[in-house]
């Protein structure tokens, strides 16, 4: 379980005499074990900062983050991260990249070759084990990056706009693919995106954030049932959720004028 308690993040002022920049403002949330939660918000709303703090890449300025009851202070193998860019290591083959987590655990090149081979099959990368990342398409690279994150069977999967750099068709395929994997392995997923449809397609719960400083505007439970059927993106319920999220993200004109 992931628990964020009144978490804030300040960045040092950019100019002399300026005030510190408040990026994340008192964010509180609880994510249950095996739950799939999306954080959606406009760019610059601090959603990636939230993920980086949960991952342990960035420190928390105020409040605290607990994972499995323990305070997060640094990155750890129980919290695997998938980044927006595949970030495969270019000097390793696809096989070695996917087995990297096991190699680090064992302290030498992994002996669990069967496990890696099976993961390669699951991810539809069969025949590409010996290729280097630059020889793969963007979608295949991102699948390899997801495989690398899953190989050590982490309890938590943190995903930072992992499909943001892909074309629409590949992105839809990857969403289906991720859900299929999630149904099988059931990790806790915290998924960051700016794509409203993507968040509704994937999540049990969508957390909507406001622009800077990032606050939680609303949390919406998505009652679309599992496993999800691709047809539902045209259903009235789906459109209702989409409208609900969009209304929070882009308030009606007069409301925004009042706020400004």
């Amino acid at each position: 379980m992931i628990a964020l308690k009144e978490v804030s993040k300040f960045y040092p002022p950019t100019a002399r005499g300026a005030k510190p920049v408040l990026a994340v403002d008192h964010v509180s949330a609880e994510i249950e074990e095996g739950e799939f939660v999306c954080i959606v918000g406009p760019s610059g709303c601090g959603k990636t900062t939230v993920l980086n703090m949960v991952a342990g890449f960035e420190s928390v300025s105020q409040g605290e983050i607990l994972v499995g009851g323990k305070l997060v202070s640094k990155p750890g193998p129980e919290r695997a991260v998938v980044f927006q860019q595949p970030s495969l290591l270019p000097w390793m083959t696809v096989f070695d990249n996917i087995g990297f987590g096991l190699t680090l655990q064992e302290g030498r090149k992994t002996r669990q070759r069967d496990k890696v081979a099976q993961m390669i099959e699951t991810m539809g990368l069969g025949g590409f084990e010996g290729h280097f990342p630059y020889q793969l398409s963007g979608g295949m690279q991102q699948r390899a990056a997801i495989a690398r994150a899953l190989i050590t069977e982490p309890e938590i999967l943190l995903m930072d706009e992992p499909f943001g750099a892909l074309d629409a068709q590949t992105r839809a395929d990857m969403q289906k693919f991720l859900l299929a994997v999630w149904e099988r392995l059931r990790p806790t997923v915290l998924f960051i995106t700016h794509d409203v449809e993507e968040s509704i397609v994937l999540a049990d719960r969508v957390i909507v954030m406001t622009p800077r400083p990032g606050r939680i505007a609303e949390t919406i439970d998505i009652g679309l049932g599992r496993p999800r059927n691709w047809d539902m993106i045209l259903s009235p319920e789906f459109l209702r959720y989409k409208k609900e999220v969009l209304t929070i993200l882009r308030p009606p004109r007069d409301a925004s004028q009042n706020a400004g």
Partner: protein
Amino acid sequence: MGYSYMASDEIEAESAESALEQNVWKADKKAYRGYVPWLVAAVMIGLWWGVTALHLFPPTSLPSPGSVVHDFIVVATVGYSGEPLLTSTLYSLGRIATGFIAAVAVGVPIGFWMASTEWVFLAIDPLLQFLRPIPPLAYIPVMIVWFGIGETSKVVLIFFCTIPIIIISAMSGVKSVQETRVRVAQCLGANKRQLFRYVIFPSALPEIFTGMRVGIGIAWTCLVAAEMIAASKGLGWMIESAGNELQIGVVFVGIVMIGLLGYGMELIIRSVEHRVTPWKGKA
């Protein structure tokens, strides 16, 4: 038709195909790569021949290609001042290789250390920047006083002239490591040693190779200076000595030899680089 999320086999096959297509496309080499370098060499030699055939310069300042080839044969068989060309070449190669390999062996760890520990950087950087602009000729008296007139002083001179660029390239190689790659290793549970071995060291390799390529060039430019230290063998010594005797043909033989050997070493480092860091420029 309600199609579920599971059926993604077709898409996978498709993306696999497009990746293979890319490789086929890359394999299509351009034909002119084979002959452009030779063409340039032929034009240069042709111009050289033309200028000397028209007697635009006196042969004592610009010998013709034919007379340089003649001098080459004489130096290669009879030798210059009793030293055959091969001996001189091997001596020079030995000095350069020793000084350069020592510079890499010492410089790379120092660069890594400077990049990872701030006080080491603060301690060594001023020294490095102070030594860098000093021309090799200025070192000669110091080298003679400290290391005598044997091989040591010549090798140490080459070592000192090449080590700054090696240190700087190793240091900047470590600093250029992508933050996300470090994070990938950290969140998979890498310790410091593993982080260095699997992420930082390979990330730094391309810049280290660039530093080595620049370094080997600097090493050759130091050769003449190094062999001004009481040498009686070596290409640098041959050039210096023949120049003093106005044997301009022998000077040209020495210049061409240094150029060709430097080029050869560059090609060797380039092919090692290509083998060790095939991803360079692609990721």
